[in-house]
């Protein structure tokens, strides 16, 4: 009881700190920067935060610096969905799933509701995430520590399975895409053995293919090339935009998706490395499975946007938990914040909450405020974005191409990456022509390396015995769930075939 009182006290203190003019200003700056960075292709939140590190020294106060950087991080999560919905280009891996139904909604003139529900969902999810962070952070972090290679393997496998289900069309094509994605993911340095795979001597490929390059190429450029076939002189969206905001019906349809997505995102997102992507996948699969109209998914079902978008924002909040409670960064952007803290003399870890409660609670409080700020920032912009779609596609297309080129170039300052993006653009174009869906491919590309590392690490730990996946409690549960899932799928497919044959 006294613990909970202590939390409220700390939180109250935190709000007092977060509401100072300086901290509010920097929270706002962070939110704006983050949104911009999330929308612009290429540069991600971790790169931006690293650019701002010297600035954070000048600010002087660690609380203020983190408030700003945290703002950038989850601001980017809000912004990432914008390009996914408008032009089918995912800003980062966690936004790929949003592209599926989000872009379809935009094509049907429902970009406004899509963007709106993404913003609202993100706000609710982010807030739930911060509430979770406030109250269950330490025990949850301990639980997350128990996730070792076998658990990651099981979880990623689950994610991959769900990715196969995403695509429309035959199962065979879906599986082919997943396999191709896995193969693409193995290009580059193999961290377990140190061997370099499939680079044909090209130094630039040693680190593997970058997600951004692949996504911009296959999704962005591929879409543009195929649209060039039809001489689209007018706007991309020919149907009149009916509503700018989500209707009450939209909200009624999505509200549970948002709640479910928030919890899925929060619990899976706490896992370092890949948590956000997997959570968006799981959310999409859950929504599709639970929905009374699953055939709508892939054609513009609003739950297909609401769920995953909430999931990835909750995951963003959750990824702060390992940092603030254990001192373990979960992804590149958080690692940058970790470094920024270290440099300013703050040790993130279990002692942070007791030794520097101001910093801990100040940051947590500002995350609540930040979510509000982002909602206020993003909702009015929906109108702006919808206007953008009214620009004739003949002009919009080359501009999108340029944004992609510069975005990709900004990653490593080399034109090579632009060529790679172009190649994937052509591949994406061809794939669209032959009705192969790039969605599962890119998700497999992201999850594949995690999966392979996990299984090889697990086998090293178990001295080669595959039993480790089943004997460990968490991993065993996940594997059991997985097997049940597959059996269920097989059962359903067989029953459908039987029904088809009977009719």
């Amino acid at each position, binding site marked *: 009881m006294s613990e909970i009182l202590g939390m409220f006290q700390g939180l109250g203190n935190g709000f007092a700190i977060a509401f100072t003019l300086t901290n509010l200003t920097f929270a706002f700056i962070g939110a704006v920067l983050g949104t911009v960075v999330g929308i612009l292709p290429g540069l991600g939140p*971790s790169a931006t935060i*690293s650019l701002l*590190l*010297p600035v954070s*020294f000048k600010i002087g106060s660690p609380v203020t610096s983190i408030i700003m950087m945290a703002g950038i991080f989850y601001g980017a999560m809000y912004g990432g969905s914008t390009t996914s919905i408008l032009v089918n280009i995912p800003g980062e891996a966690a936004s790929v799933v949003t592209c599926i139904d989000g872009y379809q909604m935009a094509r049907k003139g429902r970009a406004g509701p899509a963007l709106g529900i993404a913003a609202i969902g993100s706000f609710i999810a982010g807030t739930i995430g911060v509430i979770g962070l406030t109250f269950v952070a330490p025990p949850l972090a301990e639980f997350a*520590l*128990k*996730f*070792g*290679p076998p658990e990651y393997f099981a979880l990623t496998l689950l994610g991959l399975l769900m990715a196969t289900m995403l695509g429309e069309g035959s199962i065979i094509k879906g599986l082919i895409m997943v396999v191709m994605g896995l193969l693409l993911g193995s290009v580059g*340095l193999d*961290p*377990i*053995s*140190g061997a370099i795979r499939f680079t044909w001597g090209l*130094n630039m490929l*040693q*680190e593997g293919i970058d997600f951004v390059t692949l996504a911009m190429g296959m999704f962005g450029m591929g879409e543009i090339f195929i649209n060039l076939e039809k001489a689209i002189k007018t706007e991309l969206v020919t149907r009149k935009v009916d509503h700018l905001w989500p209707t009450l019906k939209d909200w009624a349809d999505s509200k549970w998706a948002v709640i479910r997505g928030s919890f899925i995102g929060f619990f899976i997102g706490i896992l*370092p*490395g890949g948590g956000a992507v997997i959570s968006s996948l799981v959310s999409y699969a859950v929504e599709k499975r639970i929905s009374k109209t699953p055939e709508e998914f892939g054609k513009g079902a609003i739950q297909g946007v609401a769920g995953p978008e909430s999931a990835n924002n909750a995951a963003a909040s959750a990824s702060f938990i*390992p940092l603030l409670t*254990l*001192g*373990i*960064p979960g992804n*590149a952007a958080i*690692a*940058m914040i*970790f*470094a920024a803290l*270290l*440099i300013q*003399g703050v*040790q*993130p*870890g*279990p*002692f942070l909450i007791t030794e520097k409660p101001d910093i801990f609670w100040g940051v947590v409080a500002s995350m609540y405020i930040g979510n509000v700020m982002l909602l206020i920032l993003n909702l009015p912009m929906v109108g702006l974005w919808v206007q953008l779609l009214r620009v004739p596609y003949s002009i919009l297309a080359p501009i999108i191409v340029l944004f992609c080129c510069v975005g990709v170039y900004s990653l490593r300052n080399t034109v090579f990456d632009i060529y790679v993006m172009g190649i994937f653009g052509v591949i994406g174009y061809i794939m669209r022509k032959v009705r192969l869906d790039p969605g599962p491919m890119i998700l497999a590309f992201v999850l594949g390396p995690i999966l392979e*590392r996990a299984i090889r*690490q697990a086998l*090293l*730990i178990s*001295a080669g015995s595959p039993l480790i996946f089943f004997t460990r409690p968490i991993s065993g549960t996940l594997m059991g769930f997985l097997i049940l899932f597959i059996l269920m799928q097989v059962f359903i497919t067989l029953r459908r075939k039987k029904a088809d044959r009977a009719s």
Partner: protein
Amino acid sequence: MKIRILLALVLGVFLSFPAWGMAAEKFPTKAIEVDVPFAAGGSTDVLARLVGKVAPKYFDKPLVVVNKPGGGGITGTESVVRSKPDGYTLYLGQGSGHDLVTPHFQKMPYDPFNDLIPICRLSVHSIVMIIRGDAPYKTLKEFIEWGKKKDQVTASVSTKAGSVDITFQAVGKATGLKIVTVPFRGGAEAVTSIVGGQTDCGGNHPSEIISHIKSKRLIPIAVALENRDSAIPDVPTFRELGYNVVAVGSVKGVAAPKGTPPEVISYLADRFKKVCDDPEFIKSMKDIGQPVMYQGPQDFSKYLKDGFVQFGQMIKEFNIKLE
């Protein structure tokens, strides 16, 4: 007589041209780029940024940290090697795994000793063996007893064939334990793994584990260094415990490409020394577990070569191979 004076004057003028050149553009005239061949947020990156933070007090122009990760450190280092040797592009991290260990196993795209001029050493990140705080063993001796009864003992390491991996293979051979090293993507992932108990022990640098040592989640049981590491002074060396596993660990120094003028090198060495003497810098470094250990160009150059040879000896003595 007058002609001689005239000749002397003219000669004097000609001879002073180099000084004119230098006086006209004294190094540095613009910001200096410091390349870190590792990802942002890692221990080398933090070191570089700390240096960059204190530098304005002593350098006439700012130091700008740029991350160039890739190829285990080789990509970024190579880019410095190929850059113009005018002192405006420096490599921070000289003495890391890819400088001292990798050349024993692979052909390098550049010569780590001749293509780079060592400027100074900043710190040494030693290799520490750690175990979980709640493990049934508390010292190296107990760990070895426990480990001998098992088929294999797992150790989480940051990179395959890095300095930590190689050192642990040596530990295995020296102690008679069958150590299987499990590589992760960098120190942070490796620490998470040992904290979570996924492996039996781990190998990390003090800066990566200092907060976990404080919270007693991790216990350091031995350090692979000639003498004890001042960051963790209570931890005995492997040698003290009877095992001849000695390595220089991951050294962090600054280097410039071959061909950089000597005046530039001495300016840089001098200023970096001033940074290393700065009390604020010393304290910050101590807090993050990276003790300041300055060495000037000549000493550092020798230290690097000795370290390289030492790794070579360890590899030979314990017959360590890349799988």
